[in-house]
């Protein structure tokens, strides 16, 4: 449903409020009718019991007979009570029912007053009945009730004034005094009824508004569910596209490497031949071809590794190797690169390292990337490789720390240094070379092997990269990432 259609016009709420009010009012009428039906039967029975208790017999000397009051309680009381009680049950909620009940209630009051010999206490039945009639919250029921009381006093005042006023000749207007006291109560009951009706209307209006709000929220929930479903489909499509891209990159990189290796190899051979045949003028060009090819190969290798990781195809092998031997091998490899910028390589390796059980190739790649990176950004300084044992989160690990005295980085540069194709500064690529993939690959390899990498750096004072790798990759790495042969060994 379009959102605009959800907002119903105010008139619609008003109509619904009127419906709810009418329904509530009808419920109250019906409930009160049923209450009065019960009360009517109760009053009838109570009248009979009272008559039997107080005036069971009338006497003529020693001869007794059933008192007229008993017959009146049974038959007249029954006539007064049972008809409206029946209406209250079978025609609950009808206006005629509650008006009849109002009349009957007052007639029953008159009968009870008679049965009790006109006791003043029984007159409270009249006032109690008026209050009970107010349960209807319909002031109109008070009118017939009041009319019955007024007529009772008027007629008895005319025909038997002594029975109601205690005097043989009463003022013709005295019934008005009695009726006025009833009207006095009616006024308060009228106000109470009107207030109740006002409150019922307010409740109905609030409920109508709430219903609309519920309807709108329900629609919004449905819309949100639809959106979530659409987002899920979009996400699945995006993931599929990413996998397709990674697959494409992996296959494309592989296809590129084969001819590129040939170009690099042949450029080296041509370079050697040129040097040997003393065709010195062509050597610089051949060297540029070889360097460009090497750079391109490095870039393609990096892309291949990253795409493999993103495609979830990169696995970790588990093999034992000696850490100190690996460190020596890596140091030997990077020494020419370090010395190229007139730097000094310092290696500090703890004696108690022992063997690691993890992916040797990736560990070597991590160290080579970090050290070549340090060598690239440091001139006339030192590069230190420190290796020691440590427990990281209770896991026995090896900590490799590469510290340089190079250019260093700002906080902003540090924040994105492990993102692919990102270097500390765009000018860095032009000045120092590199693909911007080295550190991204380090971070992902560390993660794959259950380790971590962090960096501390200060502009102008150098950087310190710290890699923590578990001794045994099988203890921490996701089993899904371990290749099948390795997993069996683990």
């Amino acid at each position, binding site marked *: 449903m379009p959102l605009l259609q959800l907002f119903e016009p105010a008139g619609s709420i008003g109509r619904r409020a009127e419906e709810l009010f009418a329904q509530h009012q009808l419920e109250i009428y019906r409930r009160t009718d049923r209450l009065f039906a019960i009360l009517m039967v109760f009053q009838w029975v109570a009248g009979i019991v009272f008559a039997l208790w107080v005036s069971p017999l009338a006497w003529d000397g*020693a001869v007794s007979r059933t008192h*007229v009051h008993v017959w009146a309680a049974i038959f007249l009381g029954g*006539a007064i009570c049972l008809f409206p009680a029946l209406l209250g049950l079978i025609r609950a909620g009808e206006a005629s029912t509650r008006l009849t009940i109002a009349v009957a209630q007052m007639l029953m009051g008159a009968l009870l007053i*008679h049965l009790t010999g006109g006791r003043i206490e029984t007159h409270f039945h009249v006032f109690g009945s008026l209050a009970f009639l107010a349960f209807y919250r319909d002031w109109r029921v008070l009118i017939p009730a009041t009319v019955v009381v007024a007529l009772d006093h008027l007629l008895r005042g005319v025909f038997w004034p002594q*029975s109601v006023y205690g005097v043989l000749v009463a003022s013709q207007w005295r019934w008005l005094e009695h009726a006025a006291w009833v009207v006095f109560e009616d006024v308060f009951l009228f106000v109470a009824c009107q207030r109740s009706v006002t409150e019922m209307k307010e409740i109905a209006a609030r409920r109508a508004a709430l219903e609309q709000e*519920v309807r709108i929220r329900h629609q919004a929930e449905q819309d949100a569910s639809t959106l979530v479903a659409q987002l899920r489909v979009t996400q699945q499509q995006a993931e599929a596209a990413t996998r397709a891209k990674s697959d494409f990159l992996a296959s494309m990189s592989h296809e590129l490497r084969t001819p590129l290796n040939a170009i690099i190899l042949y450029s080296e051979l041509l370079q050697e031949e040129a040097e040997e045949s003393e065709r010195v003028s062509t050597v610089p060009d051949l060297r540029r071809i070889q360097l460009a090819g090497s750079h391109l190969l490095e870039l393609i290798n990096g892309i291949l590794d990253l795409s493999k990781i993103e495609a979830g195809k990169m696995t970790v092998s588990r093999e034992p190797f000696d850490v100190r031997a690996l460190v020596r091998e890596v140091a030997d490899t990077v020494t020419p690169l370090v010395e190229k910028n007139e730097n000094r390589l310092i290696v500090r390796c703890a004696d108690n390292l022992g063997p690691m059980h993890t992916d040797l190739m990736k560990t070597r790649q991590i160290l080579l990337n970090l050290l070549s990176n340090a060598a690239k950004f440091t001139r006339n300084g030192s590069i230190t490789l420190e290796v020691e044992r440590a427990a990281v989160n209770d896991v026995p690990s090896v900590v490799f720390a590469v510290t340089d005295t190079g250019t260093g980085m700002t906080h902003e540069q540090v924040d994105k240094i492990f993102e692919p194709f990102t270097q500390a500064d765009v000018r860095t690529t032009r000045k120092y070379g590199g693909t911007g993939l080295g550190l991204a690959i380090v971070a992902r390899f560390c993660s794959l092997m259950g380790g971590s990498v962090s960096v501390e750096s200060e502009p102008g004072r150098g950087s310190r990269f710290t890699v923590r790798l578990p001794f045994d990759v099988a203890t921490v790495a996701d089993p899904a990432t371990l290749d099948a042969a390795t997993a069996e060994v683990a």
Partner: protein
Amino acid sequence: MLHEHLALLPDNTVAPPTPSRSTARVWVCGLTLLWLAGVGYGLWVLWAYDNRPGVAATAPGRWPAQTSLTQSRNGSTLVLVAHPQCTCTRASLDELAEILARAAASRPKTYVLFLKPSNLEDGWEQTDLWRRAAALPDVTVVRDVDGAEARRFGVETSGQTLVYDARGALIYSGGITGSRGHAGENAGELALVALLTRGGADRNTANVFGCSLFSSADRRF
């Protein structure tokens, strides 16, 4: 869930009146009018019964010589004749208590005679009315076997009250309630209070409401 609450909201539709409903309404109106007329007639009959007086006394104008009761020589003597089982007489005793309280200064000599048919067991007359009368101050309660004293005073209806002055002259004969078993201010009570306190009243009789002291068979004797 919100939509579940919404589903619970009742569908409120007000059905238009159908021909059958209209017919039912006419029937109900007719029956209601009939009911109202019937009940009104019934109440009218009841009111008429409650306001129909009993047989008035034919009391002797002078204190009867045959009576065993003693007349007061200093003041008035009040005699109330009661049927011990008559529920209407309860109101008469209430009114007597009211009269005696209001006329306490004149201190009339007061008798309440309770009928006791000789063919009924002893204690039949010892009802709550007897005890109530006996509890009134300066009231002498007398068992009237077979209504002998009542006959001497010409009384036929329970609640009949007679007052004789110090010289033995009848100054009041009537009831002291407004209707049958109906307590409250009434003409007889007002007249009696006036007679006892001021020595005169605008009337010296009133209707009496109560059970008959004698059955039709008793009256034949």
